[in-house]
């Protein structure tokens, strides 16, 4: 327990000093998105890695958060600080209501249902032109502001986003190690067994689904206020898949894994930029290779690889 806390503090310190090495360049901007994606990956990981329930529609909740925040602060001139929790509340309630029928489904059926849900939300963004601005997007969303400081630069946004992301991480780590976390893992392994042991698996699943949606919505609101512009294209089916990939590549059921996955997938395009049209191929191939050779994700794969190399070297020395 104490080791976990130390690890977290070390991680948080690393995040907080990181900007000093990048001098406010372009990479800062990418790191802001790493933060947002980390939040999303953690949200999905709580559902998928801990409770074992897949979702291919999380981009929808992310988008709802962004759009509710965006519309409330532009059309209705609401303060962003009141719009954000309002968005989270609406999305949370929606997820809670839809959670009961949807989480009765299992495996591929659940995947398909959440995918359908995501696509429906996406279509609504596109079609309600009067409200959302339709496919051309919604611009002029205000930046967040605290005591006269406007979060309008990459460095300021970095601290804002990562502050929230670290809070979400700490919360999730605690949740994972709590009674609820253990109950969730029981549901993950065998729902029937968990029920026999007195876990109300149905309500628990719905609650975690709603929590996951709330975190996604929060990430969406923050995204809207950092970008100051949202358009439906950012919240499509592909993005849901991308978040899923982050979770799997990072490692299911690991909060730090979600960070690794989000960081890798957000930074990857930066390294592939020279590859021009080939990047989509590399992306697909990488996805397949990861699942084939590192099915536990980076968070387990890297230590295993390290041990393997280290061990082999050791044996070589003995001989």
């Amino acid at each position: 327990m104490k080791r976990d806390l130390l690890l977290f503090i070390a991680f948080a310190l690393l995040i907080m000093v990181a900007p000093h090495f990048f001098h406010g360049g372009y990479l800062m901007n990418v790191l802001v998105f790493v933060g947002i994606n980390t939040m999303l990956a953690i949200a999905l990981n709580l559902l998928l890695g801990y409770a074992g329930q897949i979702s291919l529609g999380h981009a929808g909740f992310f988008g709802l958060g962004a759009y509710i925040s965006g519309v409330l602060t532009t059309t209705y001139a609401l303060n962003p600080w009141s719009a954000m929790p309002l968005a989270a509340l609406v999305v949370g309630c929606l997820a809670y209501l839809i959670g009961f029928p949807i989480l009765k489904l299992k495996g591929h059926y659940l995947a398909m249902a959440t995918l359908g849900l995501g696509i429906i939300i996406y279509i609504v963004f596109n079609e309600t032109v009067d409200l959302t601005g339709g496919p051309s997007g919604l611009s002029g969303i205000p930046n967040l502001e605290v005591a006269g400081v406007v979060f309008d630069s990459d460095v300021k946004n970095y601290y804002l986003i990562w502050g929230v992301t670290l809070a979400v991480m700490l919360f999730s780590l605690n949740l994972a190690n709590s009674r609820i976390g253990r109950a969730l893992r029981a549901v993950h392994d065998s729902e029937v067994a968990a029920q026999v042991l007195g876990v109300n698996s149905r309500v628990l699943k719905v609650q975690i689904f709603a929590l996951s949606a709330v975190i996604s919505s929060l990430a969406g609101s923050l995204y809207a206020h950092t970008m100051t512009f949202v358009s439906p294209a950012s919240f499509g089916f592909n993005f849901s898949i991308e978040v899923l990939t982050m979770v799997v590549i990072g490692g299911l059921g690991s909060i730090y894994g979600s960070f690794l996955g989000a960081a890798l997938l957000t930074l990857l395009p930066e390294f592939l930029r020279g590859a021009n049209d080939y990047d989509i191929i590399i992306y697909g191939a990488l996805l397949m290779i990861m699942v084939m050779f590192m099915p536990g994700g980076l968070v387990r794969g890297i230590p295993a690889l390290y041990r393997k190399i280290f061990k082999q070297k050791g044996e070589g020395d003995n001989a």
Partner: protein
Amino acid sequence: MQFDQILQYSLSGLSTGAIYALIGIGFSIIYNATGIINFAQGEFVMLGGLVTLSCLELLQLPLWAAIPCAVAVCTVIGVLFERLAIRPLRQPTPINLVIITIGGSILIRGLAMLVWGKDTHAIPPFSGDTPIAIGGATILPQHLWILAITLIIIIFNKLYFYHTISGKAMRACSYNRRAAGLVGIDVRRMVLFSFIISSAMGAVAGIIVAPLTMTAYDVGVMLGLKGFCAAIIGGMSSGISTVIGGLLLGILESLGAGLISSGYKDAIAFIILLLILFLRPQGLFGKADSERV
């Protein structure tokens, strides 16, 4: 006049639905044999159309030769996909399988983009494009081709699954894979068979629809999703239920676009999907199945 419109909506929906049905059956065959939802299924539809295009333009083959040629190429790609991606998988958990087939679909799409470029391509219709009047509605000869070929494939499917040894073995796998293995069925071979059949069917769907809808490297995504919907409505059966599911989806979509709102057309399809999943998760025609623990 109203009647004419509704007839036209239904006829249009029927041919779109036939395509959904073919793709949906492809999904179901693999799912039943392996428990995998092959997210790359839509890409074979895309490949079918584009390989035919190359056969026609590069190899200068006549249409009747280009089609079997394209189907053969796509089947080989399907086999390669199974051999290189699915079989070597060390931990074939459902989530890993979802991811690997998604990865595969991205890879195939990317390669197709390199080979055929990003443009949309047209393929000539099989037998002209003089409209045929039916009542107050019109269809094209290609629509008849689509319906006829879909029908033939469904009949062949039925014969294969119920009257051949390997077809029966495949059905045994879908009921219980371990038991099938115990009675001497080579389950891995059946997995390979399922990929062969479904990639060939996907390719056929792509070829017969291309003259109407045209084709490009990225047409597989939405068609794949709709085919998946059809399969779910049909309760993941590889027979007539999925066909009805596909046709139903096509017709409802077309009616929805005409009578309710064209913008929400796709939403209608997915709302139907959600309702069916919520109310009858075993599919529209399936019997409730007790869950195995």
